[in-house]
């Protein structure tokens, strides 16, 4: 793969050479990156952080693992209801769209991934997952923000977080946008200009407000029809739980389509961070149906919305869903599971190469469980993210090892995914 490294406004060739030289990297690396530089501009990466500790053993149940049913008992996904991936794994029945993608080679699972953190604390583990550091509290910026910084000198990179508050993964020096569904106000048309003047020189307010106004202008152009579903939730409560779930799915799909609408605009974001919440299933988590199943229905609808909204751009996109930790291999005393270690990450997108599971499956044998209770991790979350940022977004290995994921040279990227 040694196409011409000439790129139009892409990654600077000199920068690449310098970085490669400094790191003493070989020619195969150069070939890949040089190739990537040609069409990097359209590449898109969406990271969905599933908060609360998503249960990998339900997302991609290892129904072929002989120990699974015994450990999980009443909350095991029955083998005949799991959507088959291979002899060992299926997908949760709520993930029908994801499964359809998997059948086309556009979705894969990483069944035993974990961040380097082992404390089983939501907050500490989310911090480590999102900062990309080796330990907690070592940095207050997110790896996705540092990835934007790493890409920015050579090309224009826009990033957006979805939600009214800023997720740690995208916090940092690079100014990023944020958006959440809901109407913007009407009033004095002069106000934005007057406030821009008042905020001049304010390091917190000036850049954030400017970015907010930009995104607002983009939202006017993107199709807004899908967003009405969010506001319409309360009036329709009479239809019971099933209709609430359907409305939740519609809203999630609408958010996915709207964000995709941003991404396909000329100055739209190539990098998007989103959160899905409510995965902390200590009690009554359910099996093929129930609490966790509903969360997965929304997640599936969100990704499906992204896919349909992106249209042909789906071919340039990778979506990764990751969580701070998995849950105990055994059912607990209250029909749920407690904080664990390894869990499943989901990879989706038209850019993916087809393939089986990513990383090894440690099995659920008693002596294979981490500390006798959790899925043992075989893939460091940084390895997966580094692989995607390297192969898909064209960030060189040296930058990934030192700046984006500090002190992570010993963590080899998972390559060959795209």
């Amino acid at each position: 793969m040694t196409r011409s490294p000439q790129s139009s406004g892409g990654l600077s060739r000199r920068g690449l050479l310098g970085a490669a030289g400094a790191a003493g990297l070989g020619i195969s690396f150069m070939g890949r990156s040089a190739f990537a530089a040609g069409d990097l501009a359209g590449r898109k990466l969406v990271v969905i952080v599933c908060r609360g500790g998503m249960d990998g053993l339900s997302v991609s149940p290892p129904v072929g693992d002989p120990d699974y049913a015994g450990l999980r008992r009443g909350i095991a996904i029955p083998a005949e209801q799991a959507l088959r991936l291979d002899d060992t794994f299926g997908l949760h029945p709520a993930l029908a769209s994801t499964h359809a993608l998997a059948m086309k080679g556009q979705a894969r699972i990483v069944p035993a991934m974990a961040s380097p953190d082992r404390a089983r604390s939501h907050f500490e583990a989310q911090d480590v997952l999102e900062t990309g550091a080796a330990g907690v509290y070592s940095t207050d910026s997110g790896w996705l923000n540092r990835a934007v910084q790493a890409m920015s000198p050579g090309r224009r990179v826009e990033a957006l977080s979805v939600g009214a508050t800023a997720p740690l993964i995208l916090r940092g020096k690079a100014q990023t946008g944020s958006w959440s569904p809901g109407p913007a106000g009407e009033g004095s048309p002069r106000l934005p200009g007057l406030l821009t003047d008042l905020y001049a020189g304010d390091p917190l307010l000036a850049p954030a407000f400017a970015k907010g106004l930009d995104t607002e202008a983009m939202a006017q152009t993107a199709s807004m029809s899908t967003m009405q579903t969010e506001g319409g939730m309360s009036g329709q409560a009479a239809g019971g739980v099933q209709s609430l779930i359907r409305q939740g799915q519609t809203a999630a799909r609408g958010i996915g389509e709207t964000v995709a609408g941003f991404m396909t605009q000329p100055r739209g974001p190539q990098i998007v961070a989103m959160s899905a919440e409510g995965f902390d299933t200590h009690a009554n988590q359910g099996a093929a149906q129930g609490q966790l199943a509903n969360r997965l229905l929304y997640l599936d609808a969100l990704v499906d919305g992204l896919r349909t909204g992106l249209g042909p751009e789906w071919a340039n996109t990778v979506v990764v869903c990751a969580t701070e930790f998995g849950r105990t291999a055994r059912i607990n005393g209250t029909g749920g599971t407690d904080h664990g270690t390894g869990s499943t990450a989901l990879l989706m997108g038209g850019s993916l190469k087809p393939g089986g599971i990513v990383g090894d499956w440690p099995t659920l044998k008693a002596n294979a469980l981490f500390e006798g209770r959790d899925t043992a991790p075989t893939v460091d979350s940084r390895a997966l993210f580094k692989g995607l940022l390297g192969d898909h977004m064209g960030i060189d290995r040296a930058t990934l090892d030192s700046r984006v994921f500090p002190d992570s040279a010993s963590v080899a990227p998972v390559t060959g995914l795209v």
Partner: protein
Amino acid sequence: MAQPSKDLMAAIAATRFGLGARPGELSEAASDPQGWLTAQITPRGADLGLASNALSASRVRSLREYQTDRRDARRAADGKTPEEAQAERDPVVAARRLIRESAAEDFLARARLAATTPAGFRERWALFWCNHFTVSGIKLITATVVGPFEQEAIRPRVFGRFEDLLIASTAHPGMLLYLDQVQSIGPNSRAAEFFKRRQRGQGQRPGGLNENLAREILELHTVGVDGGYSQADVTEFARCLTGWSIGGQREPDKMGQFVFRELAHEPGARTVMGKRYSEDGVMQAAAVMKDLAASPATARHLCGKIARHFVSDTPPPALVEALERSWMTSGGDLSAVARTLIASPLAWSPTPEKFKTPYEYVISGYRVIGGQPAAVEHLAGLTGMGQRPFSAPSPKGWPDEAAYWATPDALIKRMAWAQQFSAVVAPERDPDAMAQLALGARLSPAVARAVARAESRPEALSLLLMSPEFLRR
């Protein structure tokens, strides 16, 4: 550090320590700003406190009745026409709406107190502890008890000893439900033996340990994530806590109230963080909590959090140390810690470093006009700004740093709120006077000028509400 002028200190007292100045408040505080704050520390605790847990018990009772009715309505609807089934369901839907409304009324009552109280610091101190011991209304059952939890467990004790606050919070039905403690059963308890015999061969194991509450007490409520405990300590503490539960439907006189279930309690002595606790029934977990409350790690964790909440996302270490000393010498007396905070010159830096949370922001807006929200719908803007009422995203509570709240989208949402609010309330008010009364010596010349030059009163008030000094405290 040179002390700021009395006028500036009054403005800081009302905004950084309080909830924003109501008209006239700055002149009340001006003669002795620190004395004005300490006078708000009252042994009876914060306002809206309740002496018994009767309100939460009645809420749990209503919710259980609703759940039973819903089950019955579903059964009754089997095999009927859609119209008949709807008729069966209607009373259930109405009951659910009432339950939701009670939570909304709790939130409105809290917001009205915050908007009108002359003791803004007392309320801010209470809100800090409500957030520290978060019960989030993310499920229907917890939504109805968040308000009662704050009123019954937290508010009466915010100027008492931390140990009492910790135990009251842990024993409250709201916390027991929110962190799944209610169903936790010791694996070797008599209850577990009974279930094992009855349920042999069936899928779910009904009787077992749930470690959620034990973990969050250690990690969030007391010593903190660096407090020196291990997974084994979490599990041991969870075993101590087994039996801490609430009365159910078969116990009409105790329904929704704290009960200790001897039968569910894991028998035996336990070791938590290197200390042995002999079997002592309900008192075993209480003994662990007393030691956790007295730990220097707890003082460090909590004093750092207080300083971050009131003063700066990165508070001066000397301020945190002063609070810690006060905490340790007073045995965790929260009124002593509050006095130390007020007395410390390091807490009075003229530069406002904190970015208001949406709740603080909206409440301070009402205080500018000397008003209060008339209906809970008027507070709907909080959800768009990222702070849905009574729905903190996790047991950790609402984050407290500017990086979380001051996002591009949140600023646009605040601007939208400021414009809607101003359109309604500004036409008959004098914007220049409002700016002076709200910010006093904190009002910058640039903002005063912008307000004076605005082309309409609503525009002027929007500028004030969106000014850098009003967004911060």
